[in-house]
């Protein structure tokens, strides 16, 4: 049976990150775009933890805390922005937010 190495975790992280990036590009719903960003941050966290395990070093796990904090702050501010935009535009379609188009 093959042994699970760091490569497998990095591959999984790359795939999850790419799915998140595709989600940001494809979806028009602002909330789902924010969820895709959370997925990308989570993929980075997975690679952090995998390398912490691989190198026998705890620093990677500490960085996951900081990434989680930034993700929480980003989600809170982002969702507040969505609520504010919904009040003025009555839509969360990102294509509707084109007031500054030249």
């Amino acid at each position, binding site marked *: 049976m093959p042994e699970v190495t760091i490569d497998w975790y990095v591959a999984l992280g790359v795939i999850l990150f790419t799915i998140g990036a595709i989600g940001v590009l494809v*979806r028009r719903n602002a909330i789902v775009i924010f969820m895709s960003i959370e997925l990308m941050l989570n993929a980075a966290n997975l690679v952090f933890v995998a390398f912490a395990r691989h190198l026998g070093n705890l620093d990677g*796990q500490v960085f996951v*805390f900081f990434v989680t904090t930034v993700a929480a702050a980003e989600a809170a501010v982002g969702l507040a922005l969505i609520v504010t935009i919904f009040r003025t535009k009555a839509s969360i379609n990102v294509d509707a937010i084109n007031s500054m188009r030249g």
Partner: protein
Amino acid sequence: MGNPILFAVLALFAIGSALGMVLSRNAVHSALWLIFNFSLVAVLYVVLNAPFIAMVQVTVYAGAIMVLFLFVIMLLAADMPRAIIPTRSAHTLLAVVLGTAMVAILGYVFLRGAAPAVGGADPIDTAPITLGFLLFETYVLPFQVTAVLLLVSMIGVVVLTVRRGKSNA
């Protein structure tokens, strides 16, 4: 670093749930798929000898952040049919092409140069107390900075969402 069969099952379900999140038409379904994905990644953290991170993943990510998402979805009634926004096929095609290219480039770079020689270190002590000492000694300044970040984001959210120009009395 874990049982191959366990990893394969978890990885397949994680990729499947991530795809379900992106492809769901309904924002509530997207949120539920993402919670499932976060839970699976939490199991991978346990496999990777990071039990405390796994707990943080479940409570903060799958718990707090996703509840915030679901709350905003309900607040905006974004699961109503009128809010289901169609994607544009040109965007989808371009995004899939770019995504495939991204996986290919990252995979090529990784397989070409960065393949590590050693199979992995011995499991180390990852008890919360060890992590706490590292966080409060080596990383105490970044820790304080994240405290400021959270305070600023909290003030920002209040400033953004409070309704001005109306008397609430």
